[in-house]
């Protein structure tokens, strides 16, 4: 009987754990070494990292990815990357004003004569979107519209760690090989298309540019991506696609090798973006790919949940209050029931 009850309790725990389980054959995104400063019950964002993260977003990501739910004023709000206690109203924060003014936007409201002007953004404006609409975004990116990043950390299993691992998880360049599909020259026989004056039909040899396809040598993937069994085989990379072990998807159709050991992950249209030194941090931090990924993932975590620090600090007060109230009620209960056998 007791064991059955224990089993039931154990099952309850198991079911809750299983509910949170994520599906898909992608690599599990572990947090970066040292974890995230904003995790845990009293975690806070690292403001310097948030500022660098905004710089990475602004200089790299924002050329394709919108953040439609954010306004420039959010950057200067309490807990934000550029919050300054001297300016409780973020719209007055000169730094935020300057950051906003770096972006030229199409004014969302018409001017005096009813036209829509381009003008520098103000803190009250939404983040500038790189494309006018989703169709334009799709057309400019080979059919796949880059997702909006406003709530991306909440919208992915693994959150900020997923962003971090995805950005740094592309295979190294030397893992790719080229394979010739059509030879460099194609010999065509003499022909005559019946128009004596057409010189093109007198050519004996037609030179066509060689067509190569890109293959990923799976055995050259960094070892942490491989399973216990050493994998051999080549993954065909379609034009405009990029393999990433953290991307949700299925690599089996593109895998030349034992299909039981197709590498984890999938393909995405975004090429590796964070190349050493691509941004020059104003605070002198060395812009390694890992550093940039760490900063931008933290910035996106803040953007997805800007009230997170406030939530946790209020939570502590609420828990203390409820704890005291529970103790008080417990003693009241004991006092009131002291004469009743029950």
């Amino acid at each position, binding site marked *: *009987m007791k064991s059955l009850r224990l089993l039931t309790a154990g099952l309850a725990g198991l*079911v809750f754990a*299983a509910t949170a389980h994520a599906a898909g054959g992608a690599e599990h995104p572990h947090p970066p070494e040292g974890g995230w400063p904003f995790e845990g019950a009293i975690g806070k964002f690292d403001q310097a990292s948030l500022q660098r993260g905004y710089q990475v977003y602004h200089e790299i990501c924002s050329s394709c990815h919108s953040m439609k739910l954010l306004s420039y004023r959010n950057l200067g709000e309490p807990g934000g990357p550029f919050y300054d206690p001297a300016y409780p109203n973020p719209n007055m924060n000169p730094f935020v004003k300057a950051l906003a003014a770096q972006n030229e936007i199409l004014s969302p409201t018409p001017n005096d004569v009813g036209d829509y002007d381009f003008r520098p953004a103000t803190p009250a404006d939404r983040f500038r979107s790189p494309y006018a609409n989703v169709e334009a975004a799709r057309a400019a990116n080979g059919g796949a519209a880059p997702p909006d990043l406003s709530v991306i950390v909440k919208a992915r299993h693994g959150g900020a760690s997923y962003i971090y691992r995805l950005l740094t998880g592309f295979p190294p360049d030397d893992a790719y090989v080229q394979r010739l599909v059509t030879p460099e020259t194609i010999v065509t026989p003499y022909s005559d298309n019946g128009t004596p004056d057409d010189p093109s039909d007198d050519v004996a040899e037609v030179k066509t540019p060689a067509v190569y396809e890109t293959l990923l040598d799976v055995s050259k993937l960094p070892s942490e991506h491989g399973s216990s069994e050493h994998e051999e085989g080549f993954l065909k990379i379609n034009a405009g696609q990029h393999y990433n072990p953290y991307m949700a998807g299925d690599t089996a159709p593109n895998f030349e090798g034992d299909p*039981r050991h197709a590498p984890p992950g999938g393909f995405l249209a975004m090429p590796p973006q964070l190349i050493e030194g691509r941004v020059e941090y104003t605070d002198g931090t060395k812009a390694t790919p890992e550093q940039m990924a760490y900063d931008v993932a933290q910035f996106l975590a803040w953007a997805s949940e800007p009230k997170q620090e406030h939530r946790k600090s209020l*939570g502590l007060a609420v828990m203390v209050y409820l704890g005291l109230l529970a103790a008080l009620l417990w003693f*009241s209960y004991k006092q009131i029931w002291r004469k009743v056998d029950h």
Partner: protein
Amino acid sequence: MSGHESSYEPTNAFTRWLDSRLPIIRFAQDHAMNFPTPKNLNYWWTFGGILAVCLVVQIVTGVILAMHYSPGVDTAFASVERIMRDVPYGWLLRYIHSNGASMFFLAVYIHMFRGLYYGSYKAPREVLWVLGCVIYLLMMATAFLGYMLPWGQMSYHGSNVITGLFGAIPIIGDTIHTWIMGGPSIGNQTLQRFFSLHYLLPFMIAAVVVLHVWALHVPGNNNPTGVEVQDVEKETVPFHPYYTVKDAFAIVLFFMMFAVFVFYAPNVLGHADNYVQANPLVTPSHIVPEWYFLPFYAILRAITFDVGPIPAKLLGVIFMFAAIAVLFLLPWMDTSKVKSMRYRPVARQFFFGFVATCLLLGWCGASNPDDGVFGTPGKKLVVSYTDAGGAEITSEYDGGGEAYLDAKKFVESLPAGTNASISAVAKPTFQFRHLSLILTFAYFGYFILLFFVGLTESSKAVPESIHKSVLKRSKPSTATAIPAE
């Protein structure tokens, strides 16, 4: 007990005047303060009070959220995020409301299992139980409607699955499906009607709660012994202050758990995909409802075969609704006169088995039905090709790396034009849909067993009265000193 005499005495001219016109103070004192309540109720009985508080929390936060929410396919998602970002303490209201739904269901499940264990559905409390089932049904409808409102991917595709269930009804199914959606597909009109109904149903719940409490106050509370109160003086205490303080303590403990979710893990019970705006053209790889629907979702998907003229889909829908309907019939399915499982050794084993079944069904509902229950099964290689006659032929290879080399050699040996390909296919294993099917029968089996067990079971000695059982427990030294015979 409605039979207890009113002890209210108006103390001044105004209350005397009011008492002869609208005896509302008398009513409140008789029902909320002096109501005689068995003194042996344990903490499982605090969940009624917890549920009342949950309903109030949901209505209060919901009314405020509705002031800021904008139902529309282009505005809903952004307005929810605006609440999270720009409305003062909007993040708190929304997280209380979204996690509050989960807490409400957690409490209602405990409340229902308590009723099942202590036989609170038996005479004279059948109407009380049935009203409770009505509340539960309304809660499920409200939660389903509410999950649509953030207009995320799971909102949209989950609603698509659930409204689609009505399409499985023969003949009139399509008409009902269209009528519910307000059009040929889920769109703006669906979102707006779901919002309207999501606002309406909680007040219907509140109305049925009034009836539920009324139906409780006629026979009075059941209690852990299942023996009815015989001596009001000895065996009951007034609800206030005895149970107000005990319930308040339990409610605060419940709030502490609630607060852990709201402040430290507000999205852990949700699904990441619901933070992606609804897109009818992109279907999530794995559609799952909220955790509190998972057992029913597992039953829905458990039936994967047609039975005679009934298609599998309709059968799944029938079983799912039957799983809820059977709760309404429970008072008449359990044939035992003994209420509390404490004195029903056989039925008690089945009760714990039933709890385990429900939890395992939840696990099945959360899992991909084709996945193996005991880990991922191994895979074998299948070479498929067409022979000269155009017939499809497959051959299988199983084993380590050498199996792949063999398969590859075989493919290379085939003549051109056979269109050969090697694919990995999971070996047959015990899948979640198999487990779901077994558990579905176990779920219904419990109710059938109650019928037969009640007829044959020999129960343990039931205490003569609440008072005697309490005396026995509070003086264990004397109880053990006296030999049983």
